[in-house]
């Protein structure tokens, strides 16, 4: 376990070094790419002034609002649709049409309908994540092992009990996957939304910095977005590990000689 972060650090360190050396030696214009150390110290400065934290919180709150709304709708609806083929046949064409629309494609409409502020941003996150999670959940529900449900029936389960005690638990791993996909998408959407629809948040911070030609601030914003996206995913993964104890040791990686514990 201890060797893994170390391995990852090698490449990261190398990149930071290049990032430092190339602008310093003039091989890249430092105005376009300020050296790493300058970006880092600017990051510390922004963090110290509380400005960065303010933007982070604004973005996070929007992501969580949009994501929870979307997940709250998509997961139960997806399970219901997956269990009811007739209903799904009505809705599937609509979903297939709406799903490929990229979230930024909704930005003009969101601003027209909801103006500027949190509402359009949350709307874009919602709309940008809900279809992916819905389609994923439907597919997962359709793929559920029917034997398990039948086994439950012959042990005396009613329909409601079968859904509650068999369908949902057996879907949990897939639901977590959908949540991770959704949260990742939400984090991408919020940056796009904040660049046009809101005054505040990391996306806004970056677009403002660009307008003022503060390349360091743009880069600080980018690093922050990356780190927070990773953090959110790790958070969900640790929740997943806690909820899905029974899956430990079932990873296909084991087959390929991966010696780390999953």
């Amino acid at each position, binding site marked *: 376990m201890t060797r893994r972060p170390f391995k990852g650090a090698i490449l990261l360190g190398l990149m930071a070094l290049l990032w430092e050396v190339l602008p310093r030696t003039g091989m890249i214009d430092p105005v376009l790419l300020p050296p790493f150390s300058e970006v880092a110290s600017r990051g510390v400065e922004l963090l110290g002034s509380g400005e960065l934290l303010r933007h982070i919180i604004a973005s996070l709150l929007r992501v969580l609002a949009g994501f929870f709304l979307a997940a709250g709708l998509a997961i139960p609806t997806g399970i219901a649709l997956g269990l009811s083929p007739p209903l799904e046949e009505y809705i599937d064409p609509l979903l297939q049409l709406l799903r490929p629309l990229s979230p930024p494609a909704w930005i003009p409409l969101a601003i027209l309908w909801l103006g500027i502020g949190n509402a359009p941003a949350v709307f874009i996150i919602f709309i940008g994540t809900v279809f992916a999670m819905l389609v994923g959940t439907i597919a997962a529900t359709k793929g559920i*092992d029917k*034997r*398990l449900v*039948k*086994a*439950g*029936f*012959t*042990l*005396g*389960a009613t329909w409601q*009990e079968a859904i509650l*005690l*068999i369908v949902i*638990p*057996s879907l*949990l791993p897939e639901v977590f996957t959908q949540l991770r996909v959704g949260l990742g998408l939400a984090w991408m959407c919020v940056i796009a939304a904040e660049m046009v629809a809101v005054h505040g948040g990391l996306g806004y911070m970056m677009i403002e910095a660009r307008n003022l030609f503060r390349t360091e601030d743009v880069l600080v914003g980018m690093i922050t977005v990356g780190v927070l996206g990773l953090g959110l995913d790790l958070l969900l993964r640790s929740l997943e590990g806690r909820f*899905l104890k*029974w*899956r430990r*040791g*079932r990873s296909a990686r084991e087959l390929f000689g991966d010696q780390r514990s999953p």
Partner: protein
Amino acid sequence: MSFLAIRDLHKVYGAGDERVVALEGLDFTVEEGEFVVVLGPSGCGKTTLLQIVAGLERPSRGEVILGGQRIEGWGRDRSLIFQEYSLFPWLTARENVEFGLKIMGCSSEGRRRIAHHILERMGLASFEERYPHELSGGMQQRVAIARALAVDPQVLLMDEPFASVDALTRSRLQDELLRIWQGYGKTVLFVTHSIREALLLADRVIVLTPRPGRVKAEFAVDLPRPRQASAVELAHLEARIAGEITLEPLASVDVRADAGAPIEPHP
């Protein structure tokens, strides 16, 4: 009156060109406490029969009567054991066994006691807290049997439960099933394509025709248990049943499903 009666059972899937007749006028009875094995080639509708008796599928015609009552839908009085992978993977062996009891509203203490008792009888006491993927195929099937027994069904329905374990494990599981059956006195309706397995287990063997399934012949197996696969009488019966099945022009039955050597007529 018989305990379990299968009456004029028909099952048709699809329509038009895709119409498949799985069962056509299936008729037989099972007495209380009896171990009946339904034997037939793949695709003869054996599984369909069990699904209908379990109430998971509706017959196109005919009916199933259990204890004088016509069967409508599923219920815990008829527990079905599948060929494989039917344990809930997110529950431990003990929790799997407790599943039906939990639904019945049994207290957690009562559940634990019953589950422990049954698992102990199945020789699984030390594996109670294991998850299904940590158990071998044979152990998983024992847990599945324990889970079915826990709800105290009137009939145990078994759909080729030992078809996907290795030969050694299979013969152990067969012995164990007989012990359990004798201990609990359950009525068992067991489906297989192996003549040998049918003869080792059954009070009575019901041979089905290939699709559409109908009763082709019935054999009472009046031999004391435990039976030896090498016993002369068993070999005779095996040859007779094999003959019965191969008379069928389209028979695709695996006559030597798990016999190591061809059946040799005894002197």
